[in-house]
Each structure stands twice: as structure tokens, then as C-alpha cells.
């Protein structure tokens, strides 16, 4: 498909200030179809860019166009765009199914269409079993899935996803990444924000690095990946049997360090190959039926990796 403005998401010299505080400054971007990740530490301006793209914020300067549509034309924009935001709140008292169905009704779908699309969306994110439970009773991961289902329910051409893997367990992460890949292969634009470079590496075609409100680099993810692979990923696991897990983890080739937490309820792991580690880890958990409370990349270290990338970029100037 020819890269006309109607196929692109364009930021033209966009700045956003919150009073005197800088949100983003002088952003110029042209984003084409496929998976594009916005990467940067917390507070770098990723969510601001996404909120600008979806008209939830208005730029102080500059223009934005999403497939040729202004973000201030919600009537047309949100037929083509779905936004899975980080706002972790929902209308009171609704079930997962009602949440999406009423959203589609406001979209002006008929009852039958809304019912069908709701079912499909819930099925796609694996939330059918809990669809008729109140969203207020959902776990963090289930709420994340509900938001995701809401954003894809109307079959948008652009999907904006703000930290979409937050709160998901490793299995669900793998499923959701698979879903993103499948949507991208259908020709959708997927804009995904993350401060976790490992996730970006796994799914993105392109990456945009954001720091302190500025876009400092953008391009193919391969270059970034090469930088990442030189540094081991750090993962924190909270579980019932950390000692047993540690003994198994030590036998993996990719693991360079495994340390028990002081409270003996968790494990800190350093690995050269996070993909391989997650695969082996999932297998171990299933085979031994270990209860896992949480698995998360160690933020501090990932921010350190990010800083490392920024540093590299800075030195290259």
C-alpha cells in the first residue's frame, strides 16, 4: 500500500506543556502500519503522545493526523481507532460483557451486532469465562484484558495500547503478544508503549525512543535489539517454592545469576536470553504445579538498560 497521509499517523512539530511542565516537545513522527513501540522510562512522555494521538489531550503547538483524520473529530476517529489506556477505572457496576456491549451500542452498532462483536472480542482476549462477572471483582490482569477487548471490539484499523502487558502473567503475555502479531499481520497500525525493552524486542517492527519529552531515536528494532542482547535481563519472581525453583533455574544455560529474596518468598534472576528463560520457566511451573504470585522484569535494571541506550545514543552524536 502506498504510504500516503491517509495511511500514516503523523505528528507535525507537536509540543504539549502542562502549564510550565513539559509533556513532549517538537515531536515529528510518521508512523506506518505494523507494530511500533514507544519506549522510554516512566514519565518520559509516552502516555502524553498516546493521549494526544487520541484527542484526550490537545497539543499546545503543532498538528496531529491519524490516517488523515484529526484527533478532534471523535465521530470519525474512533471508528478507526481503539485505545487501550492505562486508566484503571470503569463505569460502576458493569460486567465485562456489559462494558463492551454498551461501548459498542454507543458506537451505534445494532443490538445483534454489538452482541456478536462483544463475544468475539472477549474470546480473542480469553475473557469469555469471566465475561458475566462484575469488572470491579476482576484481577489486575483481567481488567487489562477487559480494556484490551474494549479497544479491539469494533475492529479498528489503528490500535493504541498503553503498557498493555502490565499485570498479565507469562502465559497471558505470550497470548496477547501473539494477538498483537496477528492484528499487525492484518495490516493494522499498533502503537504500543512500554518501558520494558525485552517486550518491545519480542513484538515490534519499529521503535520510538522517548526521553524527557523528546523523541531521541526511531527506527528498526534490530539495532536496539543488538544493544539489548549484550546486557542480561533481570526478572523478579514471587512464588511459593523459591528454593526449589532456584535449584531448577540454575541448571538453565541462559541464567547467569539467581538469588533468593531476603524473605524467602521470591527469586531474582539474571538471564542472557529472556525469551528462552520464559519458555523454560513456564514449562517448569506447569510440570511442578508451583503457585506463582507474580513474574515481572526488574524495573530498575530495565531503566538502567534504557539509560545505557540513551547514553550510547548520546555518545554517538
Amino acid at each position, binding site marked *: 500500500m502506498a504510504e500516503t497521509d491517509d495511511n500514516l499517523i503523523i505528528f507535525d512539530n507537536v509540543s504539549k506543556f502542562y502549564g510550565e511542565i513539559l509533556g513532549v516537545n517538537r515531536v515529528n513522527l510518521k508512523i506506518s502500519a505494523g507494530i511500533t513501540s514507544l519506549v522510554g522510562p516512566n514519565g518520559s512522555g509516552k502516555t502524553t503522545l498516546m*493521549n494526544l494521538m487520541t484527542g484526550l489531550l490537545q497539543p499546545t503547538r503543532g498538528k496531529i493526523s491519524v490516517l488523515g483524520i484529526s484527533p478532534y473529530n471523535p465521530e470519525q476517529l474512533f*471508528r478507526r481507532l481503539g485505545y487501550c489506556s492505562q486508566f484503571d477505572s470503569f463505569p*460502576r457496576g458493569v460486567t465485562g460483557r456489559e462494558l463492551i456491549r454498551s461501548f459498542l*451500542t*454507543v458506537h*451505534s452498532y445494532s443490538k445483534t451486532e454489538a452482541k456478536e462483536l462483544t463475544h468475539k472480542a472477549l474470546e480473542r482476549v480469553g475473557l469469555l469465562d469471566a465475561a458475566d462477572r462484575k469488572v470491579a471483582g476482576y484481577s489486575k490482569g483481567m481488567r487489562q484484558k477487559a480494556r484490551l477487548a474494549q479497544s479491539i471490539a469494533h475492529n479498528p484499523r489503528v490500535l493504541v495500547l498503553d503498557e498493555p502487558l502490565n499485570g498479565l502473567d507469562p502465559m497471558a503475555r505470550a497470548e496477547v503478544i501473539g494477538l498483537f502479531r496477528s492484528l499487525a499481520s492484518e495490516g493494522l497500525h499498533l502503537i504500543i508503549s512500554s518501558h520494558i525493552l525485552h517486550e518491545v524486542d519480542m513484538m515490534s517492527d519499529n521503535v520510538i525512543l522517548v526521553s524527557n519529552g523528546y523523541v531521541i531515536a526511531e527506527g528498526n528494532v534490530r539495532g536496539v535489539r543488538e544493544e539489548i542482547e549484550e546486557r542480561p535481563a533481570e526478572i523478579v519472581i514471587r512464588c511459593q517454592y523459591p528454593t526449589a525453583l532456584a535449584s531448577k533455574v540454575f541448571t538453565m544455560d541462559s541464567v547467569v545469576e539467581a538469588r533468593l529474596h531476603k524473605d524467602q518468598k521470591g527469586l531474582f534472576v539474571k538471564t542472557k536470553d529472556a525469551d528462552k528463560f520464559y519458555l523454560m520457566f513456564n514449562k517448569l511451573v506447569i510440570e511442578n504445579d508451583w503457585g506463582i504470585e507474580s513474574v515481572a522484569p526488574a524495573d530498575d535494571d530495565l531503566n538502567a538498560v534504557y539509560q545505557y541506550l540513551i547514553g550510547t545514543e548520546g555518545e554517538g552524536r
Partner: protein
Amino acid sequence: MSSTAIEALQPEEKAENAGFALWLHQIQAILKLEVKKNLWSLRSILIYLLAFLPVVICLLIALTVFLTSAAGDPGWREEFAQVMAKTFTFIYNGLILRTVVFFGCAWIFMNLFRGEVVDRSLHYYFLCPVRREVLVVGKYLSGLIASTIIFSLATIGSLFFLYLAGYPSSINYLVQGVGLRHAGIYVGITILACVGYGSFFLLVGLLFRNPILPALALFGWEWINYLLPPLLKKISVIHYLHSLNPVPMDEGPFAVLAEPTPAWLAIPGLLLLTIVVLALACWKIRLAEISYSGE
């Protein structure tokens, strides 16, 4: 374009082709969600308590009158309808209209947007393919339906219980002739009050982070309306409702003016004022950003 024709369109075509019919369809969907929320949410308990207050007061007055010797006095009974009409006018203007309907509308309409910001759920609507002006109209109508139902019932309930003291003749008076006409006018005034106050409070909820002080200022403005010069009087809801009162009072803030605004002017005047205020709300919502921090 008919509603069925809209449903047959592809989603992307709907926005481009449907126009007014699409907006109606979307307003219906918003009403379905919002009326339920306005009538049955935890927040609405306060409204029911407020609406219940004049009904209880009227019931207590009726019981007191019924149990006192005055009720058995044939002379007093002759004047009963007149006395109760004046009593109700006093209760209606002082308690129902200026307090219950005023603060009830403040609570319902300010929460239409302010409540969503506090609950951090406004983005739910902002991420729908709905013009923000359509959202304002949909939410306003939902508030209007809820407030009209609640406060009309409170008005009728209060009137009914007050006249219960002169049962059975007073009830006959109430359900036929002048009594029935008066009841209809009071309900009409209540609905118009919801129309006018609703638009003001919806705007207040959009303009102010803490809308309590503006609401109290508006409350004061409405109470001192009878002291204001003619031009300023027109910038208030109570000015237009005042002259519609079926039972005139002779003095005080409830007294009907020497030259009251006729109904044919008062009702369109109030509706015009409402449209202007809603237009301001539409302008404000177009500029609104989602920023829940600091709420």
C-alpha cells in the same frame, strides 16, 4: 435517514453519512446507560432522601391538622382548600422549588461530568465515536429524565399528603377542577426548574473542580432575585418560574410581581436561557482534556 438504514451501514460509513439520525441513535444509547445510573446508583440515595423530605413534612402537617379540633370545625373546613393552597404554595416555593429541586438538580447534573472525572471514567465516553456535543445533550437529557421523575413525584406526593388532612372532600378537590389544574401547573414548574437548573449545574460541573461554592453562590442569587433590578432578574431560573405560580403570594420573596412575565414569554425565555447555557457547556467540553491527576 432512518434508524434501520443506519444500522445497515458499515461502521465507517455511519459517521460520514448518518448525521442527525446517528446522533439520535447515540443519544438513545447514552440515555440507556445514564438514566439507569442516575436513578439507581449509590449517589442517587441522597436525592431520594432530599425528595422525600417535603413529602414527610406535608404528611406531618396533614396529621397535625387532622388530629386537631380545627379539622372538625365546619367553618374551618370551608376555608380548608384556600388555606391548604396557600400553605402548599409556601412549601412549594420555599422548600420544594428553591431547596429540594435546586440542590437535587445540583447533585444530579453536576455529577454528570464531574462524577465521571472523580470516578476516573470519563475517558469511556471520550473514546467513543461520539461528538462531544452529542454527549452533552445525551447526558443532559438523562439528568432531566431522572430529575423530572423524582421531583415531579415529590411535588405530587407532597400535595396529596397535605390535602389528605381534609379527606375525603379535599381529595375530590385535588383530583378534579382547580385542584387538578394547580397540581398540573406545579408539576410543570418543577419540570421547567429541572430544565433550567439542570443546564446551569451541568455547566458548573464542567467549569469548576469544586462546584460546591458556585452552587451556593447560585443559590444565593436565586434567593435575592426579587431584590434585583429588572435586567439582572432575567439571568436566573426563578424569575421565569415565579410568574407561573398558580396561587399568588402577597408579599416576601415568593410574592408574584406587580407585572409578572406572562407564561407565553416566561417559558420560551427559560428555554432560551437553557439553550445558551448548554451551548456554553458544549464549547467547554470540546476543549476538555482527560487529566485525572490531582482530582
